[in-house]
């Protein structure tokens, strides 16, 4: 994986793409890297789709807006179709194949379909397909130590909702295991 990660998390509003991006950014912070997180908040968000740009770097970050990602996490078909052509040749694509029809990656990018929605529902973790994909992404990209990623979940979920912390972590573990097999 390239040293500098420029990621886009994209899907429908409510699927947790902004949250997943925040977990990645927090993991980068814990790992001592420069990080930025920029949500879409404009008209497209009012239309029901949401995305965020996350950059992890070792130099101060200039533009936080990611246009040509080397990591794409896609949670719905419109986002997948929109951002797939923008992924760089050395990029990595993780998508939810419960909701998105398989496609081949542009050039030499690595692409992995994970049945995140199905897996989350079967494990009684409905609504946490975002974290299943997050786990799969970490398994394939290893953008920080595992402990940093776990710590990021603790930071991003308020302490008063401890049950949710554990569920998020379980969903992430499911994603990691699934990604190890493909």
């Amino acid at each position, binding site marked *: 994986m390239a040293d500098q990660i420029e990621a886009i998390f994209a899907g429908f509003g409510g699927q947790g793409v902004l949250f997943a991006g925040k977990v990645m*950014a927090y993991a980068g*912070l814990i790992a001592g890297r420069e990080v930025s*997180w*920029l*949500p879409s908040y404009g008209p497209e968000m009012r239309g029901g789709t949401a995305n965020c740009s996350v950059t992890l770097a070792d*130099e*101060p970050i200039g533009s*936080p*807006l990611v246009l040509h990602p080397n990591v794409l996490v896609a949670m719905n078909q419109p986002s997948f179709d929109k951002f797939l052509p923008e992924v760089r040749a050395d990029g990595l694509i993780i998508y939810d194949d419960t909701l998105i029809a398989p496609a081949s990656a542009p050039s030499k990018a690595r692409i992995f379909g994970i049945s995140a929605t199905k897996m989350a529902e079967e494990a009684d973790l409905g609504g946490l397909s975002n974290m299943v994909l997050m786990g799969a992404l970490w398994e394939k990209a290893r953008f920080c130590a595992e402990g940093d990623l776990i710590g990021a979940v603790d*930071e991003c979920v308020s302490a008063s909702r401890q049950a949710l912390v554990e569920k998020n972590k379980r969903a992430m573990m499911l994603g990691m295991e699934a990604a190890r097999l493909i």
Partner: protein
Amino acid sequence: MTRKVLMKGNEAIAEAALRAGCRHFFGYPITPQTELAAYMARKMPKLGGTYLQAESEIAAVNMLYGAAAAGVRAMTSSSSPGISLKTEGISYMAGADLPGVIVNVQRGGPGLGSIQPSQSDYFQATRAMGHGDFYLPVFAPSTVQEMADLTFTAFNVADEYRTPVVILADGMLGQMMEPVIMPEAIDPATLPPKPWATRGHEGARAHNIINSLHLDAQKLYEDNVRRFATYEQIKRDEVRVETYRTEDADIVICAFGAAARIARSAVNAARERGIKAGLLRPITLWPYPADAVKALHAKALVVVELNMGQMIEDVRLAADGAFPISFFGRCGGIIPTPDEVLDEIVRIHEAMEDEEGR
């Protein structure tokens, strides 16, 4: 708490204001600034302060006037169209020598414009925050850390010079998250006293009067002259600017706030191609870092802004014909890419080489 945390720019401003001893916030919701007010609504009551959502922007700024007159640290925030509504009150604050912090998380204009990031209120912030003969310090953060640090500074500058102060941010900086270390909180009770404030004295002294109305022309004249003497002092002591790789630069980009981040990426990319590029980033937009512009040894300047070209006028004034100056910008909420800015640098560099080769 000096731990590094991940925060939105809007929230960082709010938290820093609380730590600077601000206990009075008057707001009215507007995208892309709303998280700032929401954060205040959540946190202010826990500190025993006042969060008040006013019935309009105009009401909010006049509440700021009132709180400032009573001598407390107070803030209001909005985004471009809302700031326009506040400008009458800001002019009154300037005329009454009242300190207060006004945050503008800019969006595209004119009119209702867009809700996307923009820097199209530069003219307004530096020239026309209301009617009358006045200026006010304008801070332009470029990172979430600066959103916090400059908020702290803004309260200090406001109190020191008894002037309203503007923090000019934009939708990108307001919405994005970055790691930030918050300044240490200060207890508002430990702030220097404001003997001019109207806070009751039980007959112990003469009345303090806070007012911007002078029917006697001579008195208003003297008031303005005195205030402009303060402005000279601010120009001397409060200018802030950052230069990046300018020492040997042939082409220097002048950019502030969000545009400066994009420009910085473009400067690094240009250097990788062997083009000597640099960045001059004003942190105070008023007073403008004119001396830093004059001190450049560049062959050309490029002003990059998220508007149709506003700060370029201050760059031209400062440069006074010493350099060729061109403009590159996007407006309406479109964020230029580092590649576009790089193309502009390359274009100017090639033109320069052609010129030298002739």
